[in-house]
C-alpha cells in the first residue's frame, strides 16, 4: 500500500535566509503512529505546518493520500486534522460552537451528535457551553484536539501534545490516540520527550537542523536509547592497563584512571553489572562509589548519527 503521506526533498527557507527544512524526505504509512523527535528548533513544526498548508514550501513535494498539497489542496487538507503547539483559540466562543465551527470549516455538515461524542471522549462535555477563555490550559488543549477531530480526519498531527500538560490529560490523550489508531487514523506527533515516543509510537523519525537523521521502528530505536552508563569510582587511580580479566566488559578508564565507565543496556536480558562487580573484586580493585546515568537526548542523537555513518 502506498504511504498516506509522502514528503519528497522538502525545503523551506524564510525571507530572513534561515533554512528550516533542508531536503526532508519521509514516507508515513497509513494507520501508523509516527513520532517526530527532535530538539527545539529542529524543524518539527515547520515540517508539520508545511504539510498542513500553513507554510508554503520553497521546493519539494508533499502528497497526502495521493493528493498534492498545492494542486489538490482541498482533497489533501480534508484528510488532515492539526493540533497546534500553541493554545491558539477564539477566547469568547463556547466550546461547543468552536468545535462545531471547525467541522464546518472543513466542509462537513453540522453534526451535533458527533461533536457531543468527541467532547465526551475528551472529558469536555460538562464544559460545552463554557466560554473558552474561562478554561484552564489543559482544558484548552483538549478543545484544540476536539477541533482537530471534528471533521473526522484520517490523519492527525499533534504538535507537542503534552507540553505543559498534567498527568491526567496525558493519560486521557493517550487513550484517545489509542482509540483513533484502532479506527485506522494515522497519527504524527512531535515531541522532544523520548518517553512519549516510547509510549505511543510505532516508528520514530529523528529530525535535527532541518534534516531527518533517521527513521526507525520504535523497538529498534529504544534498544539504542536503553543504554545507560555505570561510573565506578576507584579508591586509587588505576595504574597501567586494565587487568585482562576485565577486557570483555569494554571498560573505559576516565579521569586518569580514577574512574571506570561501563555502558550497558537496560533492555537486555542481562546488564552484566553483577558479573562486572565480581570480576572487579577478583582483580583486586576497590570501589568507593558508583553512579548510573541515562544518556541525554542530544547524546543519543549524536550517537545515532555517528552509528549511522559507521
Amino acid at each position, binding site marked *: 500500500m502506498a504511504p498516506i503521506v509522502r514528503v519528497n526533498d522538502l525545503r523551506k527557507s524564510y525571507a530572513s535566509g534561515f533554512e528550516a527544512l533542508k531536503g526532508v524526505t519521509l514516507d508515513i504509512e497509513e494507520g501508523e503512529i509516527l513520532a517526530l523527535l527532535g530538539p527545539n528548533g529542529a524543524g518539527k513544526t515547520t515540517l508539520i505546518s508545511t504539510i498542513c498548508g500553513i507554510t*508554503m514550501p520553497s521546493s519539494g513535494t508533499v502528497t497526502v493520500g495521493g493528493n498534492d498539497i498545492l494542486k489538490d489542496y*482541498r482533497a489533501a487538507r480534508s484528510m488532515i486534522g*492539526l493540533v497546534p503547539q500553541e493554545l*491558539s483559540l477564539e477566547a*469568547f*466562543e463556547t466550546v461547543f*460552537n468552536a468545535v462545531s465551527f471547525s467541522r*464546518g470549516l472543513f*466542509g462537513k455538515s453540522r453534526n451535533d451528535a458527533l461533536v457531543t461524542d468527541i467532547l465526551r471522549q475528551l472529558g469536555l462535555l460538562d464544559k460545552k457551553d463554557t466560554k473558552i477563555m474561562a478554561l484552564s490550559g489543559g482544558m484548552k488543549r483538549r478543545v484544540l484536539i476536539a477541533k482537530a477531530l471534528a471533521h473526522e480526519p484520517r490523519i492527525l498531527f499533534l504538535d507537542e501534545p503534552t507540553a505543559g500538560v498534567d498527568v491526567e490529560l496525558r493519560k486521557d490523550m493517550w487513550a484517545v490516540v489509542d482509540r483513533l489508531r484502532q479506527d485506522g487514523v494515522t497519527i504524527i506527533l512531535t515531541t522532544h520527550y523520548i518517553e512519549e515516543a516510547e509510549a505511543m509510537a510505532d516508528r520514530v523519525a529523528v529530525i535535527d537542523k532541518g534534516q531527518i537523521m533517521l527513521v526507525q521502528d520504535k523497538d529498534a530505536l529504544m534498544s539504542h536509547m536503553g543504554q545507560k552508563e555505570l561510573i565506578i569510582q576507584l579508591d586509587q587511580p588505576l595504574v597501567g592497563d586494565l587487568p585482562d580479566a576485565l577486557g570483555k566488559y569494554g571498560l573505559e578508564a576516565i579521569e586518569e584512571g580514577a574512574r571506570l565507565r561501563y555502558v550497558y543496556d537496560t533492555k537486555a536480558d542481562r546488564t552484566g553489572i553483577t558479573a562486572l562487580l565480581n570480576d572487579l573484586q577478583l582483580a583486586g580493585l576497590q570501589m568507593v562509589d558508583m553512579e548510573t546515568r541515562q544518556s541525554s537526548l542530544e547524546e543519543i542523537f549524536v550517537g545515532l548519527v555517528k552509528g549511522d555513518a559507521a
Partner: protein
Amino acid sequence: MNYQAMRAIYIFEMSRFFRTYRQSFLAPVISTSLYFIVFGAAIGSRIDQVEGVSYGAFIVPGLIMLSVMTQATSNASFGIYFPKFTGSIYELLSAPINFLEATVGYVGAAASKALIIGAIIFATSFFFVDVQVMHPLAMVAFLILTCLSFSLLGFIIGIWAGNFEQLQIIPLLIITPLVFLGGSFYSTTMLPPFWQAVTLLNPVHYLISGFRWSFFEQADVPVGVSLLAIAAFTALCLGAIAWIFRTGWRIRS
C-alpha cells in the same frame, strides 16, 4: 465550492456580533442620535433648506453612510485580524477552502452587520426628522454595495495590520476624513469651485452623492458616475484580495 465553510465562517462571525449586541447596536444608535440632536435640531434649525430639503433630513443619507462605512471597515478588519492576533488563523489556513470562500464568509458577515446597523440608523432617523425615499430600490442597492466594498477594504486592512494600532490607523486617518469631507453633512455645491474640484478626487463623495440621490433625487455628481465609482472600488478590493490569497501576503509565510 466549500459551502459549509462559508456558512460556518459567516455564522461564527455573526454570533460575535450578536454576542456583543450592546456595543454592536447601541453605540451606533446613540452616536447617530447625538448627531441628529446637535446638527439636525440645534444647529439645523438655524440653517435654511439645502437644495430644497430640510437640513435635518439632508444629513440622514450622509449619517447612514458614515456609520455604514466605518462599521463595515472595522468589523471586517477585526474579524480577520483577531484570529491572526490569537493565532487561531492556523485553522483557516489549514482548511480546504480558497480565497473566495474565506472572503465570502468574513466579508459577507461584516457587510451584513453594517447593513443591519444602517437599517437601525435609518429607522432611528424617523424619530427626529421627516424623511422620504424617492428611489427605495436604488437606496438599498447603494447601501448593499457600500457595505460590501468597505467590508472588502476592511478585510484587506485586517490582513495587512501587524498590530492593533495599524488596525485603527487607516479608518481613523483616511476613511473618517474622506467621509466627512465627501459631503456627509453638506452639499459640495456649497463649496468654492476649487474645493468642489478637489472633492471630485474623493471616492467616498460619489457614494454619498449617489445615496443621497436615492433619497431626494438630487446629487452632486450624476448617479451613473456614482454607480461606476463604487463598482470600480469593489473590483479593486476584490483584485487585491485575490492577489493576497494567491501570494499568501501577510498571512502565509
